[in-house]
């Protein structure tokens, strides 16, 4: 009797995840997309099944993005985790004519200028991928596990400021989430409030 009720409760608790609005809930399947990156290759989430995938929403004109690239913080993270076999997709969902929109050439130039270390910079000028993930900020971070489930969604770190000097004193949620995931633990802080500029959708 008691175990039955307990099962009923647990089912109930699990199903609550389905009601979460906006971004797909942590624990749910990561939406797939098929987009071209700055090098002309097709990129999707599904092609990396079996690997951890990081999605990073990007807008080079945004001061919050500049905070993490100007300080080298983002490049360091990209280098560390791509070195551990994690796929890192940077996604630019800015619409043409709006801040942060990049053509393939401009994107490659920016990557060279900033010495970025991601797997690929994916171009999403229609904002399809951005909207399906409910990406609202730059940077807005997602971590997807090898089974294709979202295990982290939210901010890059704990200090919501545009000030690079705050990076040293903040907790990098993405690093923590990846470290925990890679050592087989569940992510303790799986959902945080992202901060930054709004994504410049059409």
């Amino acid at each position: 009797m008691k175990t039955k009720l307990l099962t009923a409760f647990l089912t109930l608790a699990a199903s609550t995840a389905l009601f979460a609005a906006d971004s797909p809930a942590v624990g749910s399947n990561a939406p797939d997309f098929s987009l071209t990156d700055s090098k002309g290759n097709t990129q999707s989430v599904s092609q990396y099944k079996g690997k951890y995938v990081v999605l990073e929403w990007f807008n080079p004109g945004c001061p919050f993005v500049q905070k993490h690239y100007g300080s080298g913080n983002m490049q360091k993270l990209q280098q560390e985790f791509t070195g551990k076999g994690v796929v890192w997709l940077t996604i630019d969902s800015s619409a043409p004519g709006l801040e942060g929109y990049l053509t393939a050439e401009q994107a490659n130039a920016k990557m060279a200028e900033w010495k970025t270390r991601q797997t690929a910079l994916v171009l999403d000028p229609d904002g399809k991928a951005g909207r399906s993930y409910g990406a609202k900020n730059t940077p807005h971070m997602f971590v997807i596990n090898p089974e294709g489930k979202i295990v982290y969604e939210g901010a890059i770190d704990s200090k919501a400021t545009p000030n690079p000097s705050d990076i040293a004193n903040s907790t990098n949620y993405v690093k923590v989430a990846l470290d925990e995931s890679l050592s087989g633990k569940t992510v303790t802080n799986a959902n945080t409030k992202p901060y930054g500029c709004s994504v410049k959708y059409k």
Partner: protein
Amino acid sequence: MVSNAMRRQQRAALAIGALLLAAPFWSASGQTYQGRELVQATLVADVSAVVPGKKFTAGLLLHMVPNWHTYWKFPGDAGIPTELNWKLPEGWKVAEIQWPIPLKLNEPGDIQIYGYHDEVLLLQEMTPPASLSGSTVQLVAEASWLVCEKICIPGSANLKLELPVAAQNSGANDEIFSRYRRRLPQSWPETNVARANWQRNASELQLTVESAALANYPAADFFPVPEPSVVVGHPKAERTGAKITFRIPIETADKNLSALNGIVVFGSDEGGADRNAWSLNAPTISAVAPVMPEAFWKYLLFGFIGGFILNLMPCVLPVISLKIFGFIQHAGQDRRRILRSGLAFVAGIFAWFIGLALLLIGLKSAGREITWAFQFTNPYFVVAMSAVVLVFALNLFGVFEISLPQFANRGLLGWTAKEGDAGSFFQGVFATVLATPCTAPFLGTALGFAFTQSGWTILLMFLAIAAGMAFPYFLLSAQPAWLRLLPKPGPWMVRVKQLMGFLLLATLLFLLAVIGAERGVEAIIWSSCFFLALSLACWMKGAFVVPTASVTARLVSVMLILVLVLGGGWYFIGQKFAAAKTVSAETAAHGDWQLFTPQLLESELKEGHAIFVDFTAAWCLTCKFNEANVLEATAVRDAFQRRGVTKIKADWTNADPAITKILKQFGRPGVPMYVLYPGNHAEPILFPEVLTQSYVLEKLETVSAQVAAQ
């Protein structure tokens, strides 16, 4: 809309121009981007001069170019709030920023933000020290903001507010201060104007606002101000007449979150200048994080342990002894019979808890404020309980015996006293009813968790408590061998029975004290009259309704008994008791304690005083114990006094809704609850439900010396 904004902006520009000319003592700073000045920041004051010790309001005036916006304290999906860091001279104090009602702005991609266009004044109350040297004061602050249009640009400025020091002052910058004061959210109105109720449904928080006043406004919205660790989705509003329901998705996995801070905004149109807002939750009180649940099973375990401990509570002990006593009597009998009677008793415990859970779920979904032991706040319930206790006691004294099975079905009288399965069942119910006001230590946390949860969780929680309470009886009835450890039956049993009767009378005294606290001395007298009639009826039952008496005598006696019980009940309770007035809190003596009002707590908190609040009720034995042995102990009283702690007594005897609200904010379903605010706006400390002197003294050490010196 655009022309409106333009006009506002022109007006603002004029105001700034006027300020520049009128007051030479402040400086402005601009944020330039590609040759354009995007934001102009200025510090202003609402006084012409600083009078030592006299409060005034300072403000950060931000003036944005058209179409650019800065952010509210909760920025929404993107952006960051404006910050103002004062570097004040020694002795100055500054209160929190008061934020005018923001606009809700939508951007492509379902991005919703809260901010200000054109111009905003962020107000802050300043308290200068009682003595000031020099003829002017210079107050410096670093302001930082994010200003966005299509793009976002952070800005910051080092600002200075220079004011003369004088013995008297007059108002300054009246126009702009009064304009923005009108745009500040107001505190939540009285419950007859608007009632707010929170409900958690799975991953969604539901705020229901019932207000006839709001029905006149076409635009109504809820702007949340979640804690940093909480991620919320976009609130959606549904209106049905005078009722508005806001559904707010909660994206973080915080299952215990039961309410949010925020403001309810209303006006003739969204973003209109005539908008008003009510703020929900006093910021000082709601800063408290609720008790976080870690794992559900852990709370079920707490419920089980709490249920077990209920057996040891003074209010339930007499009934429990009865049951043990019953076991002893049955010890020599058939094992199956013992098991059946034990199971019936256990079933009674479960029945009461399931009934209580269903009632709570029903009331909760009906939108009532529900807390543990709430039934004891109803005086009629207490009278009924007292009557049952008295009848039980008389039965134990041997005034009457219940032996006729057909009579057993006619009333509680027969039910509880009847030997056998039905009797055991109702003994179980009775024991549990008596146990509810004793919020045992573990039970508090467990129920606090449950009350913020779904109906299923509440039911499971109550089942766990019932299982805990029933556990020892189940063991004894399933393992009658252990009963042999209990003493053999004999004539001593009659004496013990009578002794138990006195224990029950002691319980009756306690219940009478509760009645007195709720309704006054008159109520005690009238209910006692009814109890006398009831006692007489019991005596008649014992003396004349016996098998040896003639049928006529028995019939007449039964008639007389009915007249006594029903007539006495109608006259003493229905007429006289009902007319006895509720004791207003003021009439009760409270020594050096101040009586709780939300205003008192709020103002004391604003002052940064150290405060101790005793949440208590007349019917709460644990509260009385703590008060007598700990809070009123000389060492503790002295420590309170030495540290200058304001002592507030929140009396929940009559279920004051303002107190209920605070109990809920701390995630507690009932009293006792003890909260120490250490002063200087530090986080409050929640004490356990059973206090010790050393614990309280140790916690009082945290009250800073600075506060104590005040």
